[in-house]
């Protein structure tokens, strides 16, 4: 894969910190598009606000860096206005799970053809390290100076319950698997949710005894459990673990397809 084809190389190096996992996830997205052979001119990347959402600036597609928490709602407008576009949403655990949680579940419900990639670094990176709804219990963050007491979401379970056609979770540590989920997510008609566990050495690692990017990657490795194995474990054993793998693959009819049928029927066949 040629970097130039999918990246605005003149904007690199990206602004992310040394060892930040976001660069790896961004590459996985580019590879996904490459594998599917999408025309970059027909690809629209919509992101919110956060370190992760800055990815939009480096990818050489149509890129829309919106406001915090709402990229899925913007993307819904883009996709519905022109269903021929490939619409990818890049979001973070703050952007997509905190302020943006509602748009996420509603897009799942509608099953609109948007591919959401959530960069889950379990922290608010951009604003310097507050806890997020996906920060593990007990973690230190600037707004949980005594350790986080809020249980994190399992967004894969949630998006599955909400109706997404495809749901998976990978990690930056297991990059090749992440790449394969990316390809599957992108090739799915209908809504897909792919969560990529990323690392924020600067604001998560430093405060939580994971001093180097490498330690963070190893934490990912040691705490990941494949969903197939996870099935045999009880909730207690799974606490604090990262369940990886494909959570659901369905083929419910995509929203804009249904919409086009509605229009066709209203127009009485003519179009």
């Amino acid at each position, binding site marked *: 894969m040629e970097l130039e084809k999918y990246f605005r190389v003149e904007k690199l*190096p990206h602004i992310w910190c*040394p*060892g930040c*996992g*976001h660069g790896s996830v961004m590459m996985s997205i580019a590879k996904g598009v490459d594998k599917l052979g999408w025309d970059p001119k027909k690809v629209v990347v919509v992101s919110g606000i956060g370190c992760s959402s800055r990815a939009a600036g480096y990818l050489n597609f149509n890129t829309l860096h919106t406001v915090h928490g709402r990229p899925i709602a913007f993307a819904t407008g883009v996709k519905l206005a022109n269903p021929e576009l490939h619409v990818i949403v890049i979001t973070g655990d703050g952007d997509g799970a905190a302020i943006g949680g509602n748009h996420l579940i509603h897009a799942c419900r509608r099953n609109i053809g948007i591919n959401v990639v959530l960069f889950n670094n379990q922290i608010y990176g951009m604003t310097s390290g507050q806890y997020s709804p996906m920060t593990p219990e007990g973690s230190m963050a600037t707004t949980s100076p005594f350790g986080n007491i809020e249980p994190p979401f399992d967004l894969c379970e949630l998006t599955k319950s909400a109706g997404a056609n495809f749901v998976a979770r990978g990690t930056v540590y297991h990059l090749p698997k992440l790449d394969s989920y990316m390809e599957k997510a992108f090739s799915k008609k209908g809504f897909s949710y792919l969560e990529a566990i990323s690392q924020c050495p600067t604001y998560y690692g430093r405060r939580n005894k994971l001093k180097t990017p490498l330690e963070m990657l190893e934490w990912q490795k040691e705490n990941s459990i494949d969903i197939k194995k996870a099935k045999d474990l009880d909730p207690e054993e799974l606490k604090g673990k990262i369940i990886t793998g494909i959570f659901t693959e369905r083929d419910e009819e995509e929203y804009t397809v249904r919409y086009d049928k509605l229009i066709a029927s209203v127009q009485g066949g003519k179009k």
Partner: protein
Amino acid sequence: MPKKGKVYINEPWCKGCEICANFCPKKILGLRGDGKMEVKDPENCIACNQCVLRCPDYAIKVEVIENND
């Protein structure tokens, strides 16, 4: 015959995170004093591409060298 590789590091892009060095099976990469990655032992590169895959900054390229010995 094992592959050999030539490693190119795009210095302005390298942020010195050391991820590549840690994943290199041959442990031939190391940080320079100025915080940039360098190939300490170019001879031993087996072109496994781990460093390329792992670098979050796309700062490494590896060329497979014809093994002419």
